[in-house]
């Protein structure tokens, strides 16, 4: 009897030691992505947000982006055209302005622009911030709502050919949109009040004349300086830009 118990106890101790070094399972926090592939995670909205749905099909796994298409590095391409310069160019020759300052998305696609400038916030209307630009009767509008679509990607000149497939290419848009919402809009939203001075760089799709006043931008860089010119320089400064 005692020998049998000793054997069982020995086996139990040996099993415990084995489990200590080779655990049967690991507990990891939800969302903890050790590989840093947040780009991949953002490509699966259907799965992440529709957990209760009946899904019968397995989605093919998207591969890693090519180095040329790494979204983080694309912020370095954000060389905007001055908004006044763009307005002047459109006034002279709209076709030439599109050709010179815009980027056409594929065959027969719209023209996208990366635009920079500064002005004073005139009003905040829900998710839209209206800005007056010195020396111009026209206005700029910053879109602070939900960011969807490919406006940022196209305006920054990301090319489909740099990616192995269109899913990876589209994942760049998802990642850019996430960065704009989290890193640019969220930290600046409360500071964007009437009277504040704003330096902005943003992306827009421009078609006809109606898109020129106001020019509505998805902001990718913002610097907000307190209230109007009289207090500029003395107030606190907040800025945001897509990380390099």
């Amino acid at each position, binding site marked *: 009897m005692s020998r049998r118990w000793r054997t069982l106890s020995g086996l139990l101790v040996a099993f415990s030691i084995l489990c200590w070094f080779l655990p049967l399972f690991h507990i990891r926090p939800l969302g903890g992505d050790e590989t840093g592939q947040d780009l991949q995670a953002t490509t699966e*909205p259907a799965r992440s947000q529709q957990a209760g*749905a009946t899904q*019968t099909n397995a989605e*093919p796994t998207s591969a890693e982006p090519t180095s040329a298409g790494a979204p983080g590095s694309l912020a370095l391409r954000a060389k905007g055209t001055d908004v006044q310069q763009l307005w002047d160019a459109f006034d002279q020759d709209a076709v030439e302005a599109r050709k010179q300052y815009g980027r056409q998305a594929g065959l027969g696609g719209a023209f996208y622009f990366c635009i920079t400038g500064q002005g004073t916030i005139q009003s905040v209307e829900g998710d839209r911030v209206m800005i007056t630009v010195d020396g111009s009767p026209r206005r700029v509008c910053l879109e602070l709502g939900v960011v969807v679509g490919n406006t940022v990607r196209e305006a920054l000149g990301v090319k489909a050919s740099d990616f*192995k497939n*269109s899913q990876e290419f589209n994942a760049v848009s998802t990642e850019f*949109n996430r960065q704009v919402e989290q890193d640019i809009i969220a930290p600046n939203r409360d500071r964007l009040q009437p009277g504040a001075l704003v330096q902005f760089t943003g992306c827009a799709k421009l078609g006809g004349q109606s898109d020129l006043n106001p020019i509505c931008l998805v902001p990718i860089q913002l610097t907000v300086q307190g209230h109007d010119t009289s207090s500029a320089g003395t107030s606190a400064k907040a800025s945001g830009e897509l990380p390099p």
Partner: protein
Amino acid sequence: MFRLPTVAFRSAKVAALRTFAERTTTIFGTFAERTTTVVILLLVGCNNVATNSADIANKDNAGSTSSPNTNSQDKPQRVAVIISTLNNPWFVVLGETARDRTLELGLQATLFDSQNDTAKEAEHFDNVIAAGYSAIIFNPTDADGSIASVKRAKAAGVPVFCIDREINANDAAMAQLLSDNYSGCVELGKYFVEKVGDKGKYIELLGLVGDNNTWNRSKGFHSVVDRYEGLKMAAQQSADFDRNKALEVMESLLQSHDDIKAVFCGNDAMAMGAYQALLAAGKAEKVQVFGYDGSEDVIQSISQGKITATVMQYPKLMAKTAAEYAHQYLTAAKRDFEQKIPVNVDLVTQANISDFAGYGKKE
């Protein structure tokens, strides 16, 4: 002396015959190779060429010097148009436009139907390469499964121009013209929320799960709709871009989901199938259907208020451009094509339906 059997093989045996012949070529040298080529050339003429282009295929006359476009070796400049399926009117338009534009440009053209079967598609490639075609305009069946065929063509010196569907490789095809499906479904998603509202249940019918277009459309749509917590996807199932399958799937789903407000379909064929199922269940008035493609029957259905919206792809633009690229490659030695070329798409609703006809804008 090695001699190939002279009995007529059915198309399904072509690949096996070629594999067998390739092995024997190493043993019997050039004689077997030439014999194999002759047999395959004979088989090409009687297998799997789409019936509606048989007359064009018959015009192909190996060794003929009457063609206006010939290369330095006086070989005929022939272009193969290999389409994933001709069982869907949208793809018929795609294939026939590519073929017709190629003919307009003075080249020979033959249309092949892969019947959504990667094996059949590979067989077409083998035949086309062996028959000495100069270029291929290609609508793949599978983003991964079709890569090997394109690489075989490239190795044989035959350029491939992909249209509408892509392959997951940048180093195989000469160029790939692809509808901007993601953007199209972002716009469709916005309109979906506008029409359905920000609360309620809906069903999504996916296309072929191996096709990137399926997921680009789905992800574009969800990038908008998933931002509204009140919109719940009750079910998501594949109907393979097929109208009849969509009808069956929808009938089945309606048994367990009778409280849906809308159906988002990855193409128009499935939208028509879903609408048919809703009509039979007496729910066509209550449930809004959204498609994708811009096919003739859906454009008509939008104007009649049966389907809520679709996204217009431009199959004729893609097909014509691919034919022109092939022509430039063959006659002007152009090689610097952009690898991936997105093609613009447009949202079609009752508000702008007057601007559109089936498969494009009104001319």
